[in-house]
């Protein structure tokens, strides 16, 4: 574009307010030049450097993404047809669930409890503990000698609830805990009982 300042009537011509025939004869040549310059300016191609490269790269990126991901993220229209009466049991079930969850129920203790088992067995070579908490496995929970002669002990973390157990002395002799209540084990012996 040149830096030439056109006559106001010529500017009106460029704005489409006047036609070339409306201009005075003295301004027609200036008007024709202005129109020629405008035509040249309008037809110059507009270019954005790198645009084509960026568009093609984006298309390739989308084509390379997994199909399941495209299905997941691509917006789509979902039509839901509902019979109004079917909402009644659905709302009733939701209400029942809310009321059930809101109901204050019994809260049994569930935290694990640390328990120390102690047996006085001065003649024993080895002592272990077998019970419902270790599938009655005499090898699973050995007791260790304490600083006091003849005293054996083991400390376990047990779940809350009821446990039955017995000490196993020297791998063969099953002994109920003298410091705990006991019940008949069904085999003619006694099992100690621990309620946590």
């Amino acid at each position: 574009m040149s830096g030439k300042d056109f006559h106001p009537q010529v500017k009106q011509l460029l704005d489409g307010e006047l036609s070339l025939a409306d201009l005075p004869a003295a301004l027609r040549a200036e008007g024709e030049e202005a129109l020629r310059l405008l035509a040249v300016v309008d037809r110059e191609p507009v270019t954005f450097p790198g645009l084509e490269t960026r568009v093609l790269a984006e298309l390739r990126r989308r084509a390379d993404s997994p199909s399941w991901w495209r299905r997941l993220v691509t917006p789509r229209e979902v039509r839901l047809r509902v019979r109004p009466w079917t909402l009644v049991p659905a709302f009733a079930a939701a209400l029942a669930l809310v009321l059930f969850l809101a109901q204050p129920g019994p809260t049994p203790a569930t935290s694990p409890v640390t328990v120390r088992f102690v047996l006085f067995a001065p003649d024993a070579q080895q002592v272990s503990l077998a019970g419902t908490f270790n599938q009655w496995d005499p090898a699973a929970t050995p007791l260790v000698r304490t600083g006091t002669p003849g005293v054996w002990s083991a400390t376990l973390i047990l779940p809350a609830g009821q446990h039955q157990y017995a000490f196993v002395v020297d791998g063969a002799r099953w002994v109920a805990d003298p410091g705990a209540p006991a019940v008949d084990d069904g085999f003619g012996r006694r099992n100690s009982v621990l309620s946590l």
Partner: protein
Amino acid sequence: MKTLSVALLITIAAAPLGAQQDWVARVSPEIATLVRELTSSAATRGLPIDPLIQKAIEGSAKGVPADRIAAALRALAGQLDVSAAALRRAGPSRPDTDAIAAGAFALNAGLSDTNVTDLARVSRPRHTEAATLRVAGTLAAMGVPAAQTVELVTQVIDAGGQSADVVALPAQVTAGVAHGQGVTPAQAAAGLARAAAARANAPGQQRPRPSHP
């Protein structure tokens, strides 16, 4: 993808089966067969099967002859049935397996099926039947007479006691015996029941007792 899904499903389904089959290696084939029969029958009646498996393992670990293990298993299956029936008499809800097992333990400790029914009724709805029955069985195992055990637990619950208060009862009886001069478990339990009754009757402490059928 399909192969992976099927393999995952098989793994998930097989895991509990594997865990359940561990006990078979701990017992003789004869006892394993009996346990399978008893647990299958128990499961169809809604009874817990774990106590039966535990008893079979226990007997084998103790070196008990197979015929005595079989007798103990049948006796335990009978106690589970009695416990379930006693719990059903306590109310309309179907007893859960934990409560049935706890009831069987209480029966083994010396309580009657009527005691089990009464304790289940007093437990509802604030306490779990299983916890109450385990505590009651433990008290009975300590030497507290059955009627007194039921009275103590009932008094504590009626006085507004929480689950922790009920669970603490065996330890409180033990402490009472340890600190008293020649106090028996029955006497210690009687003292705790009197204290609970006093709390329940104190002004502002009374709460409506649920009506039991």
